[in-house]
């Protein structure tokens, strides 16, 4: 990647909004998108008239059951007579939406961008997992009728075997995140649970159990992203986008070392280089690693270089990643606690960091002072890594 950045204008986040995350929302996808978009605009003190461009993120069209979903969501996302595109990297889309909003602004083409993530998973019949029957290579894999949880089970197994982590070590992530979510008004599955509860929950595909997994969710989240000039006019505490990174590995997940997410590591290095971060484990104060499964948070903490490979689970046990710990992760409650409307979940993570960096997170505010934060999302066939570094 190029590093000779001559960015004239810094890019800031000035507003964020999320809908309540829930199953079987009565709102249409367009209404969900607008609810989040309006909240973000309200926080920024701006209206649709101030928005120059719109970026939409939404994962498979089959969840909402609408083809050309970006076009469908356009008016709900405020894209009425405005430049609009929909970007898509599977589950990584959520964090990728603000990433691409960055170059909308940094290129000088747009001054104010509305970045919206939306997903309505619950209408899929009989279960959203069925949508994942159609994500496979149509010739090699689809005839085997695989299920998405199977391949994640393989990855979890591999991580456990390579790193010596036990089920009860990994279950602590679920316990921590669901507890953090108790303070999040948007959360769908916040709870005070114990490691035992996780270990006794229904086995889906060994070693993945029900409480190891994030739920099926409907929801939307949005951010208002502006140039430095606009940001200075509308707020005293803009949150800067300091680094962006993204990497996509090939589709052959079966040929990969699953214990370490190399695609994420590459994306993180790209973002850190741009942000001038050399020692992320020291320089990052709060993180929102993508946690659709509990082992994934550990996996991603290692990919983001916030812990050494295979050591995240040991630090977790010491309370290092708690909200009052050294390096709080998923203070929002993460996907395990707040819910997982695919693209909206990634935007929610960035929104949480925005609130943390402005000290606006209320009961969720982490104990230590915060200056720099990182979020990531992950998607496709365990191949997409998207990373954003924020600073205040």
């Amino acid at each position, binding site marked *: 990647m190029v590093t000779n950045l001559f960015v004239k204008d810094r890019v800031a986040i000035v507003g964020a909004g999320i809908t309540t995350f829930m199953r079987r929302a009565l709102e249409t996808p367009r209404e969900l998108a607008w609810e989040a978009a309006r909240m973000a605009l309200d926080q920024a003190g701006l209206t649709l008239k101030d928005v120059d461009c719109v970026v939409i993120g939404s994962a498979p069209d089959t969840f909402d059951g*609408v083809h050309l979903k970006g076009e469908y969501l356009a008016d709900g996302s405020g*894209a009425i007579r405005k430049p609009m595109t929909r970007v898509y990297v599977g589950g990584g889309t959520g964090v990728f939406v603000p990433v691409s909003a960055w170059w909308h602004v*940094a290129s000088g083409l747009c001054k104010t961008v509305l970045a919206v993530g939306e997903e309505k998973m619950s209408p899929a019949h009989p279960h959203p997992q069925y949508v994942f029957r159609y994500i496979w290579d149509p010739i090699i894999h689809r005839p085997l009728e695989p299920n998405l949880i199977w391949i994640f089970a393989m990855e979890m197994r591999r991580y456990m075997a390579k790193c010596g982590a036990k089920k009860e070590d990994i279950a602590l992530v679920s316990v921590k995140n669901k507890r953090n979510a108790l303070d999040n008004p948007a959360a769908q599955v916040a709870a005070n649970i114990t490691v035992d509860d996780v270990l006794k929950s229904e086995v889906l595909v060994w070693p993945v159990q029900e409480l190891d997994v994030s739920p099926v969710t409907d929801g939307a989240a949005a951010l208002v992203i502006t140039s430095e000039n606009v940001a200075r006019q509308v707020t005293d505490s803009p949150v800067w986008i300091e680094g962006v990174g993204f990497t996509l590995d090939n589709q052959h997940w079966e040929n990969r070392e699953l214990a370490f997410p190399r695609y994420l590591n590459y994306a993180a290095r790209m973002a850190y280089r741009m942000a001038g971060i050399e020692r992320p484990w020291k320089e990052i104060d709060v993180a929102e690693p993508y946690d659709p499964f509990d082992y994934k948070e550990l996996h991603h903490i290692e990919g983001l270089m916030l812990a050494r490979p295979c050591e995240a689970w040991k630090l977790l046990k010491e309370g290092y990643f708690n909200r009052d710990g050294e390096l709080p992760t998923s203070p929002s409650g993460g996907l395990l606690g707040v819910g997982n409307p695919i693209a909206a979940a990634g935007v929610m993570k960035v929104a949480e960091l925005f609130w943390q960096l402005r000290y606006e997170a209320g009961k969720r505010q982490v104990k230590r002072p915060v200056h720099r934060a990182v979020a990531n999302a992950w998607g496709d066939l365990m191949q997409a890594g998207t990373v954003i570094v924020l600073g205040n």
Partner: protein
Amino acid sequence: MPRRVGIIGVGWYGFRPSTPEVHFQGMMFESSHRAYADANVDPRKDVDVFVDCQEDLWEGIAITDEFAPEPIGGALRPTFTVSGDGLLGVAHAYMLIRSGLADVVAVEAHGKPSEIRTLQDVYYMAFDPLHVRPLPTGNPFFLAGLDAQAYMQRTGASREHLALVSAKNRTNGLKNERAPYSARLTVDDVLSAPYAVYPLTRYDIADFSDASVTVVLASEEAAKRFTDKVVWLDGIGFSTETGSGAVEWHAWGRMLSMRDAALMAYKLAGLAGSPSESFDLAEVEDRFSFMELLSLEELMLAKEGEAHRLLEQGHFNLGGPLPVNPSGGSLAMGVQLEATGLARLLEAVLQLRGEAGPHQVKGARKAVVATWRGVPTYTSAVAVLSAG
């Protein structure tokens, strides 16, 4: 001064009604390695970002982005998908280069409609599930029929004018190796064909073809490292008028998104003087014959309500003052789903390099490309190009 962006390589594969010899990834690979050879770049070293343009339901795969990186050389590199027309991918490439994040960007788009067994049903899936999909409309192109009617009413263009567009483009296509639906067609042939959607007959509507197109873009400094065959992307614009679920807000008989996109692209290109005198050729939207006339007006290449008069006078013929769709347009080349915009960009690039072959517009220095995403969307993109 913002960085200047140029197109340093193009590659294509297909432009046939069916391509049974290749898998969609095979097609992507073919067009991409040709583009990299044309640009003289090594994709594993020289290309900073890869952009792929595709939509899940066209592909029949729920997360098609998974299959993007490998055939275009983007594995373990910064690669992403724009769910939209290839020209929207080019807009992202333009922004990536202008922002300084990338020096060289590859954009790929493909369409393989021959493998879609229920194309009409897939179109219906794009309609609002509550308000539009349940209507007993029979053919998803009814929306284009309504727009055609409104356009004709407003401007006084007749069915003969629409037929003349189809006859012109399909005849132009005879000189283009990428135009499987070209034919020596007369206005009478078009008018006497059965209606598909009133007032459009089957020859007023473009057929589908399979193709993959890859374009390599670079900043001015980077371009010099690889090639001296540069076509400048002076400006790009894109816009959405309204959502596909909010057809009631569409201005019928207009394509305001194309007007907005054109204004954005012209502004970026610093177009001095009137657009109608600024270009040597135009490759514009024509998947429905009336769209060519409407596009010319929205692009301000003809005054409102006058495009059909100029057409009558042969203004837009190959050899006329402003050749429009010398390639034959979508009517002759077919609609390649999300690759349609890149197909038209490809034609314009070849024209400006003087490599278009039998349908070369002599001395072409400046071109405009405009595309619309088709029914039921109200999104368009416009690019302004100039010869290097």
